C-alpha cells in the first residue's frame, strides 16, 4: 500500500528466541505520533516481563529518522542473510517516507558472524544500525523509567 505522507514513520525491532526458559526477547516499536513501546523478557528477571510505553517528542523521532537514513539500511535486502534458527531471530521493520523494509535474520553474536555471511556488507549495515538503535532506546527507556534494560 503506497502512501504519500512524507512524515510517515514506523520502526520495530525484535530479537529473541524460545527455549528452556520460555520466550526471551526484546522488542521496541515507534510510531509517527511519538508512541514508543518497549518490551523485554530476560531470565535474569525470573518471570517478570517488562512492558513500557511512553511518547517521545518530534525531535527524538527526527533523530531516529536521521540515524536510519544515514545508515542507508533502506538500500539493503535480506535475501542472502542467515535465516532465523533455534538460537534466535531478529526482525527489523521500518517505514520511512515512501520506503518500507522488513528484514528477518538470525541472531548475530559478533562482527565475525557478519564477515562470514553471504552478504557481509549489507549485514554489517544492519548489525551496526541495530546497535545504535538499541543504544538510543535503552538510554530513553532507562532514563525515563529508571530501569536497566537487559540486553
Amino acid at each position: 500500500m503506497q502512501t504519500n505522507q512524507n512524515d510517515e514513520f514506523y520502526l520495530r525491532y525484535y530479537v529473541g528466541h524460545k527455549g528452556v526458559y520460555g520466550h526471551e526477547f526484546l522488542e521496541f516499536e515507534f510510531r509517527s505520533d511519538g508512541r514508543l513501546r518497549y518490551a523485554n523478557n530476560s531470565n535474569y528477571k525470573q518471570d517478570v516481563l517488562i512492558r513500557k510505553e511512553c511518547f517521545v517528542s518530534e525531535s527524538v523521532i527526527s533523530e531516529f529518522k536521521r540515524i536510519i537514513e544515514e545508515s542507508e539500511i533502506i538500500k539493503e535486502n535480506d535475501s542472502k542473510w542467515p535465516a532465523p534458527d533455534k538460537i534466535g531471530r531478529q526482525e527489523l521493520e521500518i517505514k520511512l517516507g515512501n520506503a518500507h523494509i522488513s528484514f528477518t535474520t538470525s541472531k548475530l553474536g559478533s562482527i565475525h558472524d557478519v564477515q562470514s555471511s553471504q552478504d557481509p556488507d549489507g549485514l554489517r549495515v544492519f548489525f551496526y544500525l541495530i546497535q545504535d538503535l538499541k543504544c538510543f532506546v535503552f538510554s530513553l527507556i532507562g532514563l525515563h523509567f529508571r530501569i536497566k534494560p537487559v540486553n
Partner: protein
Amino acid sequence: MSKKQVIDNTDRYKGEAGNFQSLESDDGPGPMKSVEGWILIAKGIHEEAQEDDLFDAFSKYGPIKNLHLNLDRRTGFVKGYALVEFSEFAHAQDALNGINKSEGICGKKIQVDWAFKKPNKKGALKQIKKQ
C-alpha cells in the same frame, strides 16, 4: 488499588501482551516528566565532543542528574545526540532556551528540545504509575 494499564487488543497484543505500563499524566500537550526528572535531547553534536563539553555547557543552568552522550558503535565517535536530565523543570527549561541561543558545543550549534511529551489523546495513558 487497581493497576490499570493500556489494553491494546489488536492481534499482536492479545491478552496480557497488550498491557504496557506508563507514567501518569494529564492530557497534554507539553513536555512529560520522567520518573526522577526532566529529560532533554540535544542534537547536532560535534563528532569529537566529550562528555565534559556537554557537562560544562548544561550545568550552567543547574545541577545535572544524568547525561548520556552515546557513541556511534562502528566509528567510536559521538553519534550526534545526547540526553541530559535535570531534576528541576526550571533548570531544564533554562538550559533548553539558553543553549539553543548559544554557540553550542565545540563551536558547533546544537538543538535542544524536550525528549518526552504527554500523549495528545484525551483519556490515553491514565494509569497508575508502577514502582
